[in-house]
């Protein structure tokens, strides 16, 4: 009797999630994999076609272009974001006066909803009246056409994206402030300079957060959608800013090739898992976990 009552109590607490996990996550995962093997338009029942979607993708030039664009974006946005956020967090952690105020300034852009961010940067990057090119002209630089020039759309998106790294700054700073003071004191006794302390004390102590931010960054940039969808519709010009998820979205909801889109989603999933595993593996020797 008592046991049954406990079981009912447990069920009362966790039943929402049992349903949610099943209906909104596990069922879609299984169905999505099945659909990736089907010709499926949502209007008609799915028709099994084996691995044809995957085979078609391999010879789909737009698929590769989307993947290349996304890889390019990640290859620049991730390191730049890391350097800017970690650099600013380290400076904020030097005990300067006004730290909280600076932190607020750096964090505010991270609060800007993505659609608003995209709309705002459309204006800044405007080729003729854009304020950025005017500021560049003050430095004697003739600014490019940014969003009108296929060579400059991706760099423009990298800049707009880096503007919103405030969240990472706050995360780094929180962790930096937890580094025990006695470690720095010990380093001082050993005659360590500023850089030596950062390299041998600070970075190892915050390495788990750097890794965490890196992995979240990989997952986020591979799914980059809202900002380019607004700033460079269809990735135009020349589809130079057509990213993986934009093509996936168009396949699913514009062309109604839902099976094809599901196959793309699964390829993305595999890429994310592989890159995460790679990141964990490559950093395993450098990431320092407390208590190890």
């Amino acid at each position, binding site marked *: 009797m008592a046991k049954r009552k406990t*079981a009912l*109590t*447990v069920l*009362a*607490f*966790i039943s*929402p999630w049992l*349903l*949610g*996990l099943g209906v*909104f*996550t596990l069922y*879609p995962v299984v*169905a999505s994999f099945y*659909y990736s093997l089907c010709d499926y338009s*949502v209007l008609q029942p799915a028709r099994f076609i084996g691995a044809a979607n995957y085979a078609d993708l391999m010879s789909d030039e737009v698929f590769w272009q989307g993947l290349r664009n996304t890889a390019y974006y990640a290859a620049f946005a991730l390191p730049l974001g890391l350097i800017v956020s970690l650099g*600013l967090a380290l*400076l904020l952690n030097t005990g*300067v006066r*006004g730290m909280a105020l600076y932190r607020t*300034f750096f*964090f505010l*852009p991270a*609060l*800007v*909803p993505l659609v*608003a961010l995209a*709309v*705002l940067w*459309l*204006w800044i990057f405007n080729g*003729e*009246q854009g*304020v950025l090119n*005017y500021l560049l002209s003050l430095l004697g630089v003739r600014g490019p056409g940014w969003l009108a020039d296929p060579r400059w759309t991706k760099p423009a998106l990298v800049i707009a994206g880096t*503007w919103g790294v405030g969240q990472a700054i*706050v*995360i780094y700073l*929180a*962790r930096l402030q937890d580094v025990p003071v006695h470690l720095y004191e010990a380093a001082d006794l050993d005659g360590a300079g500023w850089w030596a302390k950062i390299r041998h004390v600070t970075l190892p102590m915050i390495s788990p*957060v750097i*890794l*965490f*931010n890196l992995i979240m960054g990989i*997952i986020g940039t*591979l*799914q980059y959608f*809202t900002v380019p*969808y*607004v700033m460079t*519709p269809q990735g135009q010009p020349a589809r130079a800013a057509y990213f993986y998820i934009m093509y996936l979205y168009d396949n*699913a909801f514009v062309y109604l090739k*839902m099976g094809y889109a*599901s196959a793309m*989603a*699964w390829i*993305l*999933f595999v890429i994310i*898992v592989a890159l*995460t595993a790679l990141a964990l593996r490559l950093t395993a020797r450098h990431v320092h976990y407390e208590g190890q």
Partner: protein
Amino acid sequence: MKARNTVAHTAIHAVLGLGSLVFLFPLLWMISTSLKPIEETMRVPPQWLPSHFLWRNYYDAVMYGHKILGYIPFLEYAKNTLLLAALGVTGTVLANALVAYGFARFRFRGREALFGVTLATMMIPFPVLMVPLFGLFRGLGWIGTFKPLWIPAWFGSAFNIFLLRQFFLTIPRDLTDAAIVDGCSELAAFRHIIVPLSKPALAVVALFHFLYAWNDFLGPLIYLTDQKMFTLSLGLQFYQSQHGGTEWNLLMAAATMVVLPIIVLFFFTQRTFIQGIAITGLKG
């Protein structure tokens, strides 16, 4: 040594000051543009500040197209967004608190496995779920309604369950044990003892879901069909795609209206915000 320190500190302030300017400038430029008459937005070199504050831009942006549409678009967008946020936040807090407490407090068969599966689902990118969810919601007749955008929140989410479970684990069991010996039910003990103690953690979950609802673009883009039901994010994108490239002052006024409430919210809830972000980074 002292002199070197002063030099170093001046240099640090210079870098941080310049950085602040770079980070703040786009926001200031947005606000400045939003208050200018149209001809002042087109000047080269740019006019940094409006000659006078044209508040009418905000009125015009909010009211655009209301005669043809028969309703005031941005007012509807704001109402829809707030409604979705309220429904979503309520569900998120209730469901995740209950489930997370279930995981933290009770031992039951398969608990570790279920929790492991829960954590693993965090790795699944949304596009994997997108097509079957669309099919499911379509089958239920939910496309073109708000339902796909708030009902799932009432069933919990892996990340919030994880976050709250970690918090609940730090609360000593004795606190509820005594009440239960006195004949209080687990649910009542949870409600009257655990929930009041957990307000800071619940506030983080609520705040972050509110931001999510305010920000979400892909969800509304997929599920909403009628312009009158658009959220602010979707409405702003729609407005931009219709009016972009010409009336930058009105567009910036519209963008400011989407951004400003979040910034105001931030200033009122700064501690919860900073704590919440710090917690999310501690998973690593």
